[in-house]
């Protein structure tokens, strides 16, 4: 068009705000991508000049095959993950490392995987693909690949060329699993009698203090659970019971530590049992006599059936049965149980006024929760409500259901790492929030460095600890009415708000708790529960409930909470690790044992017996290639006969055992 006038016409729209624009773009799948905020990308290699390979390179073929099963880590951005794959594919096209057919097949594969990954609740909040999400990733990836230097494009593909000769140089491999630094357990944050005992048990058993400290906390929880709650502010109360689970390998002296720390509770159980013995015997005798009398009346009434005295005899029999039934025999006091079926635990919980602690140095309880005794049907209400304190209905065989108004369960378990991996396989444990209720601990292993004939626990330290726990347990056991309510000082209330304010942003986006937001959302509550427990252990059952919890105690609980937070991040990282990563870790271990600079696919099939067929092995190989532990070497030209098995160069870090 020549010499046309430029004319502007009004239209009907109003202005937009930046937030509205951002929202609308996200809504339609036009997300901000890495590099969007930077300077303009200069085109280095126009897409019109890119060529197709006659044969897709081994590395690219493996990379694409891996996408069929690969998925982002939980909490990682799903759109950026796919976008990265598209960029790598475009780089493969740009470098002439992929055939046109394989390229289009790979694009279709990614398009098929997008809704699958977006709907997977283990990765993030399920959502639908956005209208332009795929189109934008595809188009934009072309632009990004075109703007890369040759070196940058090769780097996207692990430095691969078709010959993989001189360019086959390893970079530092990317770790297969996330590693988290676990701080030392802040023993000095515990009240003095507990802290001294933790240090002494740690010394005598030559174990990380975290193990005894966590066990000590579950022991306090067994004393306080169901008897006391803490009110953070109107409308927010937390019961003072916790679920703990230190994770340690076999031979780490878990049982010895736990038995020592929980011992005083059994003393109290014995004392309470002894104290109530005569009353129980009396009630039991009265009940048995009444039952015998009722039985006799029943027989008498039966004999007088259809006679003049039958009405009276029947009324006597009913009355006697009611009298016998009304006599309650006090149950034997139980604070702690070990391996127990859900039905027995429920009955015990009802008998003991809603309070029960299960303290065990094994993780068998998880099998029970998963339904070992109930036809593999998980029965989790007891364990979920036992932590939250929500009312629980307990169905009992041949008897009316019982209602526990405020169940308060303590779980003090110690498990092996393998158990954690088994737990991770149960989707309901995570999905229904059971795993979010546990405080995880990773005591550092001292095996191989333990001092022989270490100092035993000094008698005065043991006595002071046991007295503290016994007094607390016995004192609170006598509190049979509604739970006592702990309050916070004004400064303590502010301290909790400060913790909440700091934690909240970490639950979303790139925050450290975002991948475990289910656990993170209970984190401040756990700190408050610990604060209440520390307060009672410090002030005792008498003065404790009438004294407000101080800011210093909140601070101490926060320090302990920080330890548990670091452990939870590691635990959920392990829980969330997908099976391909688990396989890759296993395969890497097998490769390390081979001590070879190069390995073939056949070598790996032979060395890694877990893989029954090649299709099981390939995703693990692809993951090791992706992370830079293996480098595919060029395949030799076919000379007929059986095709050569693909060969991989092994990163020296593997063979050097680093």
């Amino acid at each position, binding site marked *: 068009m020549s010499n046309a006038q*430029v004319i502007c016409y009004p*239209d009907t*729209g109003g202005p937009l705000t*930046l937030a509205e*624009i951002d929202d609308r773009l996200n809504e339609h799948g036009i997300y901000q991508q890495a590099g969007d905020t930077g300077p303009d990308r200069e085109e280095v290699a126009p897409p019109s000049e890119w060529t197709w390979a006659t044969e897709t390179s081994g590395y690219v073929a493996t990379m694409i095959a891996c996408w069929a099963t690969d998925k982002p880590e939980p909490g990682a951005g799903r759109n950026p993950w796919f976008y990265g794959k598209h960029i790598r594919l475009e780089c493969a096209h740009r470098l002439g490392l992929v055939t046109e057919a394989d390229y289009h097949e790979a694009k279709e594969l990614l398009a098929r995987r997008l809704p699958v990954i977006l709907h997977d609740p283990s990765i993030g909040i399920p959502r639908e693909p956005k209208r332009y999400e795929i189109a934008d990733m595809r188009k934009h990836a072309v632009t990004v690949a075109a703007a890369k230097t040759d070196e940058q494009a090769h780097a996207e593909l692990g430095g691969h060329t078709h010959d993989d000769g001189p360019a086959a140089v390893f970079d530092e491999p990317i770790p297969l699993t996330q590693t988290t630094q676990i701080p030392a357990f802040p023993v000095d944050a515990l009240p003095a009698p507990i802290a001294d005992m933790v240090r002494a048990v740690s010394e005598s058993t030559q174990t990380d203090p975290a193990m005894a400290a966590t066990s000590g906390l579950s022991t306090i929880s067994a004393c306080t659970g169901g008897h006391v709650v803490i009110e953070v502010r109107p409308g927010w109360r937390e019961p003072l019971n916790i679920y703990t689970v230190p994770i340690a390998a076999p031979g780490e002296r878990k049982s010895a530590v736990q038995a020592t720390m929980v011992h005083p509770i059994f003393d109290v159980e014995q004392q309470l049992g002894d104290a109530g013995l005569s009353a129980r015997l009396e009630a039991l005798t009265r009940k048995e006599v009444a039952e015998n009398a009722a039985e006799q009346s029943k027989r008498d009434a039966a004999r007088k059936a259809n006679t003049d005295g039958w009405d009276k005899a029947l009324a006597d029999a009913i009355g006697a049965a009611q009298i016998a039934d009304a006599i309650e025999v006090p149950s034997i006091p139980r604070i702690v149980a070990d391996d127990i079926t859900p039905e027995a635990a429920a009955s015990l919980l009802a008998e003991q006024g809603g309070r029960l602690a299960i303290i065990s140095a094994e993780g068998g309880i998880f099998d029970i929760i998963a339904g070992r005794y109930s036809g593999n049907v998980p029965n989790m209400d007891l364990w979920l409500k036992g932590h939250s304190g929500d009312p629980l209905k307990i169905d009992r065989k041949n008897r009316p259901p019982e209602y526990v108004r405020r169940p308060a369960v303590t779980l003090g378990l110690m498990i092996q790492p393998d158990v954690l991996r088994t737990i991770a396989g149960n989707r309901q444990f995570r999905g229904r929030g059971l795993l979010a209720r546990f405080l995880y601990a990773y005591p550092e292993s001292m095996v191989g460095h333990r001092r022989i004939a270490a100092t035993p626990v000094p008698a005065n330290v043991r006595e002071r600890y046991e007295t503290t726990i016994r007094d607390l347990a016995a004192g609170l056991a006598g509190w049979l009415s509604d739970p006592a309510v702990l309050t916070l000082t004004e400064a303590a209330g502010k301290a909790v708000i400060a913790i909440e304010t700091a934690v909240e942003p970490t639950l979303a986006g790139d925050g450290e708790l975002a991948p475990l937001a289910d656990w993170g959302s209970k984190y401040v509550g756990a700190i408050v529960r610990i604060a209440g427990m520390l307060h009672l252990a410090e002030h005792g059952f008498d003065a404790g409930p009438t004294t407000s919890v101080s800011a210093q105690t909140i601070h101490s609980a926060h320090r302990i909470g920080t330890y548990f937070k670091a452990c939870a991040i590691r635990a959920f990282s392990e829980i969330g690790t997908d099976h391909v990563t688990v396989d890759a870790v296993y395969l890497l271990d097998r490769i390390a044992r081979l001590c070879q600079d190069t390995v073939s696919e056949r070598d790996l099939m032979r060395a890694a017996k877990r893989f029954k067929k090649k299709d099981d092995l390939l995703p693990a190989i692809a993951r090791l290639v992706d992370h830079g532990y293996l480098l595919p070497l060029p395949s030799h030209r076919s000379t007929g006969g059986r095709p050569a098995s693909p060969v991989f160069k092994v990163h020296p870090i593997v063979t050097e055992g680093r």
Partner: protein
Amino acid sequence: MSSTTTDPASTITDFAELLETLGFTGDEFISIGHEHRGAWRTAVMAPTDAAGYVAKLPEGANIFFGVNPVTGPARANAGRGAETDVTRLAALWADLDVKPGACKSLHIANAIIDDLSGLVGTRPSVITHSGNGLHPYWPVDDGHITDTGAARALVRRFGRLVVAVAGEHDARVDSVYDLARMLRVPGTYNNKGGTT
């Protein structure tokens, strides 16, 4: 050069009115560039001076203005202002050329604008017929730039939305989504051979 046209005045937005629609104020600066007989010249001035300045340029020139205000002071032939000089995101825009290989017809260009309007939730406030296609403008209310990178990213993403929507109409659009983008001045002429 005057900004009058042959259309009824009530249905036409002149340059000054366009700048008002885009929220230009007296304390901002606008960049104007023009190409005449192969020479490219730029000037940065107060928005109130822009219409007068444009009117004095030769009718045979291709004249453009920076959609977004830039830093002062007023100057001539010292560059139109780089992205980092842009002080406010005044509007989102699209550059929909009507020609083979782009939008096949004005109808297609209008259909793309309709679709974009549906997606962003509002019609553009003004549409310029550039002599070679359409330039719809969606003004931004709170576009003062505190982070150039963030503003740059938003404009680029909108550009990608335009590309995606155009693709659905089998149309290709130019990649003209940088903060310092200049578009044709209403009331001027699109002289063949000029840069659009």
